[in-house]
C-alpha cells in the first residue's frame, strides 16, 4: 500500500500584507484603465472649473453672488463632483460586478480572503479621490486664483471625513444590492441627491435655505468644505465640529452595516 498522499508543507503562508500590496497595485491599474472613471471622476471637475473660470464675469466679485466671486463658491461643488463619481458611482458598480461575475468566488478558492480585493479596490478609489481633489485645488489656486483652503486643518478634516462618509455609503449600496443593475440604480440615486445638495444643478448661493441646511448633514458635507475653504467657518464654535461628527457617524454606521450585510454571492 502506498503512503497516504499528504499536503506540501513548505514555508509560511503568504502574509495578508503582501497579498494586499499586490492587489492594490492591480486595482490602481484597473482604475486608471477605466476611461469613464478617469475622465469623469478625476479630470472633469477640474475641466468644469476651468471652463467656468474662463467666463470673465464669474471671476469677478458680484452682488448677484453675494459679493464674492462665483468661481470661489463653485470650487467645493466641483470637488464633490469628483468625490461622488469615484466614491458612489464607480466604487459600488465595481464591487457589485466583482460579486456578480464571480471574481470574489474565484478568489475564495485561493489562500487569500476575497475581502482583500474589496479592500484593495476601496483603497485605490480613495487614492483616486485624493489625486482628483489635489488636481482641482491646485489648478484652482494656480490658474483661477482661488485661494488655497484658508482653514487647512479643518478643511483637511472635513475632506477626509467627507470622503469616508461617501465611500462608506458607496460600499453599503454594493453590499445591499442583489445585482449589479440594482447597485448602479442605488448609486445613481445617491449620487443625484449628493450633487443636488452639493450645488451642481443649482449653485448653492441660489438655493432655498432648506437645501443649504441639508448641505450641513448630507455626505460629504459640502457646507463645511465651502466654509473651511473660504475661511468662513467658525472654528471656535460647535457648528463645524457637529458637522464633522455627523459625517463621521454616517461613515461609521454605513461601514459597519456594509461589513455586516455584505452579500458574498
Amino acid at each position, binding site marked *: 500500500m502506498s*503512503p497516504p498522499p*499528504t499536503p*506540501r508543507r513548505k514555508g*509560511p503562508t*503568504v502574509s495578508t500584507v*503582501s497579498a494586499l500590496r499586490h492587489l492594490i497595485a492591480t486595482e490602481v491599474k484597473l482604475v486608471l484603465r477605466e476611461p469613464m472613471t478617469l475622465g469623469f471622476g478625476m479630470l472633469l471637475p477640474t475641466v468644469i472649473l476651468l471652463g467656468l473660470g474662463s467666463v470673465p464675469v464669474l471671476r469677478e466679485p458680484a452682488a448677484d453672488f453675494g459679493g464674492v466671486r462665483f468661481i470661489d463658491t463653485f470650487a467645493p461643488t466641483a470637488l464633490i463632483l469628483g468625490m461622488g463619481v469615484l466614491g458612489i458611482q464607480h466604487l459600488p458598480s465595481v464591487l457589485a460586478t466583482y460579486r456578480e461575475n464571480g471574481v470574489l468566488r474565484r478568489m*475564495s*478558492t485561493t*489562500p487569500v480572503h476575497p475581502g482583500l480585493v474589496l479592500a484593495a479596490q476601496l483603497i485605490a478609489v480613495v487614492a483616486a479621490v485624493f489625486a482628483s481633489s489635489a488636481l482641482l485645488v491646485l489648478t484652482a489656486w494656480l490658474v483661477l486664483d482661488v485661494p488655497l483652503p484658508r482653514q487647512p486643518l479643518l478643511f483637511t478634516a472635513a475632506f477626509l471625513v467627507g470622503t469616508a462618509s461617501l465611500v462608506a455609503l458607496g460600499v453599503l449600496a454594493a453590499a445591499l444590492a442583489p445585482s449589479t443593475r440594482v447597485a448602479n440604480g442605488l448609486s445613481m440615486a445617491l449620487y443625484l441627491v449628493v450633487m443636488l445638495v452639493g450645488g451642481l444643478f443649482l449653485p448653492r448661493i441660489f438655493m432655498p435655505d432648506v437645501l443649504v441646511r441639508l448641505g450641513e448633514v448630507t455626505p460629504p458635507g459640502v457646507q463645511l468644505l465651502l466654509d473651511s475653504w473660504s475661511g468662513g467657518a467658525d472654528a471656535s464654535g460647535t457648528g463645524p465640529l457637529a458637522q464633522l461628527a455627523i459625517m463621521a457617524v454616517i461613515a461609521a454606521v454605513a461601514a459597519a452595516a456594509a461589513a455586516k450585510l455584505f452579500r458574498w454571492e
Partner: protein
Amino acid sequence: MPIIDVRNLHKRYGDKVVLDDVSFSVDEGEIFGILGPNGAGKTTTVECVEGLRVPDGGTISVLGLDPRRDRAELRENLGAQLQESALPGRLRAGEALRLYASFYRESADPDELLDMLGIADQRDTQFRRLSGGQKQRLSIALALVGLPRVAVLDELTTGLDPQARRTTWDLIERVRDSGVTIVLVTHFMDEAERLCDRLALVDGGRIAALDTPGGLVAGAGLEQRMSFRAPADLDERALSALPEVASLHRTGSQVRITGQGNLVYAVTAALARDRVVAEDLRVERSSLDDAFVALTGNGLPS
C-alpha cells in the same frame, strides 16, 4: 489511500434535497469524472470538496485535510476552476496570473504556465478581449498556478467550439501527466469517456453508478451488436450455440449477431477456430450515453 475521500455527503437547500448520501474516493494521479445532467448535484458536490459550501452531513477528506477546518492549508493544495467565474475586464492575462501566483507560498512560473496552455501570445491581452477558449485556458492556468496536488475543473468545455474542446482535453491529460490529480465535472459523455479513468454518474443527488467508462458500459448489461461478411460454408449453429450470442441473422453473405458479455471475443475466437475469415467486421459499441440511460432511467440533454 485515496487523495480525496467523500463519505455519506448530504446537503439540502431549504426543502430541496440536493445531495443524498454521496460517497466516492479519488486516487492519486487519476482523472476522476463526475457526470450527470444539469441540476444533478455535481457542482454542489465539488463545492463541498473545495470548502466553498458546508455539507449538512457526511465527511470529506482531501489530502487528509478537512475542507472547513483546514481551509487555508486546503487552498494551498487544491486548485479550482469554477463554472462562470470571470476576472476584471481590463485585467491582462499575464497580470492575472502573476497576481494569483502571489497568493500562494509556492507557485508555478506564470510565463511557463501561459506557454504550456498555449496563451503566451495573449499575455498582454485584457480579459474582456480573450475568446471563450482563451478565457477557459486562463482559468485553468489560475487553478494550477499554486502548484496544487488536486485540481477541480467544473464544466470546463461548455460553450467551446469542437476544436477548442479537443485542445483543452489534450491539455488536461498533460496536466495529469505532470502529477496533478484531476476531478472533472461535466455533462458531456464524450468528454467523460475520453478523459476519465473512473466516473461517478450522478443523478438526482445520488450516485447512480461508479466505475471505469468501459465498466459502466459493460455493467449496464446493454445488448451488443456486430456484423461481418462470411463465406457460404459458415457453421451458424456453432455460433448460435455460444452463450454470449442472443440472436443471429444471415442475409446472403452478411451475418448480424446480437448478444451480451464478451460477445466480440467469443465470436471471433470461434471463427478463428473454424478457420473462417470474417470480412468487413463491424462492432457497434454501446456508448456511455446508452449506459447512462440504462443506469439512471433517463437521458442526458445533448
